[in-house]
């Protein structure tokens, strides 16, 4: 059976508290100057290290190096990826800036691989409006250059924002795909562990026994609220406006509860043992997703006695 899969993108604008050393380095970039850090052995590291790996002391001496340097090794990128410095073919190069003892990895906008060579001279192409960010170095290009020269040292940059986007393809297991296809038909199908005989919804490898669950078991679209919380707090990524109730619902026929929303009843009236029934979305909107069940609401049955769900807490 084909398994279901779908794209997943995770993105966040992370910040970086830079601290005293990298804060000065970024401030230099804003003035189109490159600062290296000198370690106790006399070597100049670009970008600077925050702590000397030999003496373990904080690095405090920053010295200006040239915006031009020499390619000491390189490779060619035919198909740039999202987030890389250039959106056209470029060279990834280790570049030792004049005055530095360590190489910096960056992109060289050379046009074609034939224009790249070890030992070639390159210089920084600055962003049009430097802002005190590592991206102030847009890339490198063939050429030469000279240090801008000392000015009064600017205030260190405190924080830099680094947006990160990660793209995945999320694939389900055979068991989960079967479960999702059941949902598309309005059925909830779990699987029973051959060892402990527990029915898992959604189906998965039995976490207690470590074996595949094999026997398909259709369970009811109604069950018992074992426990719950009332969400009163707004937070990032939230889809509903508080307050709302998220409950553990033990479906009739299942041995493990699923979390779901309890609506159609004031939050203050939700209680442990409340009998609830699934409210499905319009059949025309069903697909292979648990979102076919919009929420649960009171089933209008007497509450389940505590003893019937106590072992599921």
């Amino acid at each position, binding site marked *: 059976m084909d398994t279901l899969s779908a794209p997943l993108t995770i993105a966040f604008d992370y910040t970086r*508290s830079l601290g005293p050393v990298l804060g000065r380095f970024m401030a230099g970039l804003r003035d189109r100057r490159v600062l290296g850090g000198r370690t106790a052995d006399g070597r100049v590291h670009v970008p600077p290290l925050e*702590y000397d790996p030999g003496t373990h002391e904080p690095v405090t001496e920053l010295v200006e190096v040239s915006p031009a340097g020499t390619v000491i090794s390189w490779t060619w990128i035919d198909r740039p990826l999202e987030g890389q410095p250039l959106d056209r073919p470029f060279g990834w190069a280790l570049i030792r800036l004049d005055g530095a003892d360590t190489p910096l990895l960056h992109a060289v906008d050379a046009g074609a691989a034939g224009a790249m060579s070890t030992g070639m001279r390159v210089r920084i192409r600055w962003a049009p409006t430097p802002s005190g960010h590592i991206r102030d170095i847009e890339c490198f290009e063939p050429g030469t250059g000279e240090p801008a020269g000392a000015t009064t040292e600017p205030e260190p940059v*405190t924080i830099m924002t680094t947006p990160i986007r990660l793209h995945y393809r999320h694939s389900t297991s055979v068991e989960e795909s079967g479960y999702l296809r059941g949902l598309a038909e309005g059925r909830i199908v779990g699987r029973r562990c051959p060892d402990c005989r527990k029915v898992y919804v959604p189906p998965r490898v039995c*976490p*207690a026994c470590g074996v595949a669950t094999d026997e398909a078991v259709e369970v009811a679209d109604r069950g018992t609220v074992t*426990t719950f919380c009332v969400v009163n*707090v707004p937070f*990032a990524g939230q889809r509903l406006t508080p307050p709302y109730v998220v409950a553990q619902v033990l479906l009739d026929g299942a041995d493990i509860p699923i979390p779901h929303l309890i609506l159609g009843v004031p939050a203050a009236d939700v209680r442990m043992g409340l009998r609830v029934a699934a409210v499905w979305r319009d059949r025309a909107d069903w697909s292979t997703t648990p979102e076919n069940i919009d929420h649960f609401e009171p089933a209008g049955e007497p509450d389940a006695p505590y003893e019937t769900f106590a072992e599921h*807490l």
Partner: protein
Amino acid sequence: MRRAAVLGTGQTHHRTRRTDVSMAGLCREAIDRALADAGVGWEQIDAVVLGKAPDLFEGVMMPELFLASALGAAGKPLLRVHTAGSVGGATAIVATSLVRAGAHRRVLAVAFEKQSESNAMWALSIQPPFSAPITAGAGGYFAPHIRSYIRRFGVPGHIGALVAVKDRRNGALNPYAHLRQPEITRESVQASTMLWDPIRYDETCPSSDGACAVVIGDQQAAEASERQVAWIRATSMRTEPTFYAGKDHVNPRAGATAAAALWAAAGIKDPLDEVDVAELYVPFSWFEPMWLENVGFVGQGQGWKLVESGETALGGALPVNPSGGVLCSNPIGASGLLRFAEAAMQVMGRAGEHQVAGASTALGHAYGGGSQFFSMWVVGRNP
């Protein structure tokens, strides 16, 4: 088994945002204090163990790589540990194991979190395709289990507030604590906003930037120390699935079996009588009574009574979280190591204003994930 001891501890001033330091600077603030406290120089450190919670919190994959030089690991073994919120405890235990195995004389354990670089609530709420859009946040995960605890034993509703008042007032005695609230009262806690019913705002941990470090040495290193060390009498770790049919979220099996193994290894028969002070991982105040039962200080359903009696406050029979605990400072990756370090500080007699008089045996405890990982140690003034 070979002996091991904590030679020194260090921690940062924990704050919502430590924008004055980078991740490296944050770690070094704790490390430099730990080395000074231990009276140990960098040349005496043989290996480094780094603990941190999910990489998604800072958006740095494998931070141990870029932090290696700042952690003083150049030319030495460097290990990364990750067991969610319990990672700080697991980090100390891995470092202890390296010493007890005879692999190294002195190991530096460090753990950190810089929560301000992103948003932990966001990072913990990533919704994969094909899952239901049921998001409740971190407190929303644990609130139903607290409700179950209250229901199972008929616990009075004010117990959570009692713990919050105790821990926040303890935190006011701790110069490193993020939240220091000497004026807090039971009434003010109960008047605070209900976030995830039954959890109120003042019953939750803050979101903190911070780090903690400990230096662990072998018997020779401990005996060479000019200061009191904390002898590591026993360590224990256990794991269980986050979810399985019949999982007891109120009294997780992994926590109970880890504790039983810990007490046996330490030769402790009556923990409540023999342990002088405990640092328990309590991110929501209600977890104090739950963990008192889970680790076996008292029987099932008795934890809240110990809290209500006041015996877990400073001056009581078993002070719990004299540092203020996770309720006062929560740099997640470091929170477990802080519990372990605070236990060591107590038996070393170096806990300052929140010192428990005469403490000679202490428990450090951490848990992580959905009550999935548990790590603990017992430290003592004597081996």
